[in-house]
């Protein structure tokens, strides 16, 4: 009886968590032009429409550009910071840390709005630069965390052993420390890229029609039309992200990189 209750609960949680996704996936193959559930048959016409729709094509490439720059810049800044925190005690370290974590606490709505106001002041309205800067801030905590954890996992004895064998500080960094944190950096970059690519709330404020990213384009589409094209795009995004994460976990041990503890 107890076993039955346990598995019922587990099933309920699983269904509750995955149901919205499953509904979206199912409507994406609906043959008619309505977002009906359950679907009335199987058709891939909406997938074809999704990949050929010009707004989505532009938004996809916008997203790729923004994501590449934002994640890479965040990786450079975040890694440097993680390295500094790992290596040195300095005044204001706590404040710096708090500022870097703040995007986890401050609503994306607020950040997006803030960047919009700033953009006006600096004449950067809804251009690529502003979108990239906003996304960079949003993904910074994730990159920093990933690099910080993998740095903490590098045994200090390894650096000392290398120095003992004649490696200068530069060689200790390039031959020992960097190769050992590289998986963490790659994993952090990937998480940042996925978050940036699918971010909506802040993007809604900082993008314009020329620079809109895919989620914003999807939102604009669904305000006008109610056909399953958006479901099809969602399905492709989910599948692509899942594949990417799966490969990344195999290649870099993503779970270890993102773990809260350092082991």
């Amino acid at each position, binding site marked *: 009886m107890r076993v039955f209750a346990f598995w019922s609960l587990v099933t309920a949680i699983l269904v509750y968590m995955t149901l919205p996704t499953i509904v979206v996936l199912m409507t994406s193959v609906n043959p008619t032009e309505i977002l009906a559930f359950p679907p009335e048959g199987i058709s891939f016409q909406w997938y074809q429409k999704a990949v050929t729709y010009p707004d989505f094509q532009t938004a996809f490439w916008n997203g790729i550009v923004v994501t590449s720059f934002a994640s890479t810049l965040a990786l450079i800044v975040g890694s440097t910071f993680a390295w500094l925190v790992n290596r040195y005690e300095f005044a204001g370290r706590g404040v710096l840390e708090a500022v870097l974590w703040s995007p986890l606490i401050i609503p994306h709505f607020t950040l997006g709005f803030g960047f919009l106001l700033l953009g006006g002041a600096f004449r950067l309205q809804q251009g690529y630069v502003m979108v990239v800067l906003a996304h960079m801030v949003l993904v910074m905590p994730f990159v920093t965390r990933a690099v910080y954890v993998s740095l903490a996992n590098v*045994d200090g*004895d*390894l650096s*000392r*052993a*290398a*120095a*003992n*064998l*004649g*490696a*200068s*500080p530069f*060689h200790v960094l390039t*031959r*020992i420390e960097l*190769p*050992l944190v590289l998986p963490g950096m790659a994993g952090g970059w990937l998480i940042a890229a996925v978050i940036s690519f699918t971010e909506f709330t802040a993007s809604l404020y900082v993008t314009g029609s020329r620079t809109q990213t895919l989620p914003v384009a999807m939102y604009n589409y669904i305000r006008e039309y109610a056909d399953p094209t958006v479901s099809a795009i969602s399905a492709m995004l989910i599948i692509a992200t899942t594949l990417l994460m799966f490969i990344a976990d195999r290649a870099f041990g993503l779970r270890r990189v993102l773990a809260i503890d350092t082991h």
Partner: protein
Amino acid sequence: MNPSNPADPAVEIVRVRKDYGSAVGVADVSLTVGRGEFVTLLGPSGCGKSTLLGMIAGFVDPTAGKIIVDGADVTQVEPYRRDIGMVFQSYALFPHMNVYDNVAFGLRMRKLSKAEIDAEVRRVIEMMKLGGMEERRVRQLSGGQQQRVALARAIVIRPKVLLLDEPLSALDKNLRAQMQVELSDLHRKTGLTTIFVTHDQGEALSLSDRIVVMNRGEVQQVAPPIELYRTPANGFVASFIGEINALPAGRYEISGGEAALVLPGIGRLTAPARPEWRFGHGTEVRAFLRPEHVQPAGTQAGDAQAGEGANRISGVVAAHVYQGSHTITRVTVEGIGLVETRVTGAEIMAEAPVGAPITLTIDLGQAVLLGEG
């Protein structure tokens, strides 16, 4: 060679001190290690032995003092310019490199030619019995193999000194015994000046030319193993090296060639005076006795060593620890506490079961006597 001041020093530690805030890590230690010597820093954890080793390697900056290697003051020299090999307690093998690359690392940092590196690496890999494992990842190696890679990596650079930081502590007991023998062989073959850190007195006694016993940041005694065991300089060394019974303080009496130790409430122990016992008549001394120099009375060994009827104390058997070739028997003696005897064979367990009264003879002539203060 004068053991306390070698003629050809490889390492000279001159009044080295390390303070951690108000706490003292190492307190004004001076030590000279001769070329080719195997010296062990021995002491309980926190005694400063690892800090001292860290200062020789250059990972810890001394608060004061000088470290001289091969005649050159290296106190301010960066670790990577010191040419000192080190084996870490954790081995610290580079996990992203295979065995060959780990061993070759130091030579590559020295910018040797590919051919030279290859020849040296192969030679040392052969010497450490690691042939055929060159391509293995270090994670795939057993503890003993990792240990050998760590050693190979440290000696391939032909260091001026080899530092070993508790390298055997991570191994199981059998492997540890085997690695002790290998370390000894390696030292003989390479002739490398070696400084070994351990808290295991057994390792220290079996491996070292000289042992430096440390406690609370200070050197307690520097001596070859046999001397350390037989004539410890103080109570700490006496109790740290091997098993020993510490008797309570007593009064030393000397008349003619006969010395006596009067233990109030326990009795009077006598022995022919030994030349190193330079205590005045009536001064307070403490006696330390190895378990083999305390024997049950009535046995051949006991009566032979103490003389019939003399040097006896009585107590009650508290426990037997059977060890195969011998038995350790712990006896509760009023006024002393637990006294340990080491008796050949197993018969004592039947003759004097736990709880039975027992008389022990004490061979004061073998005791270490230390004056108070």
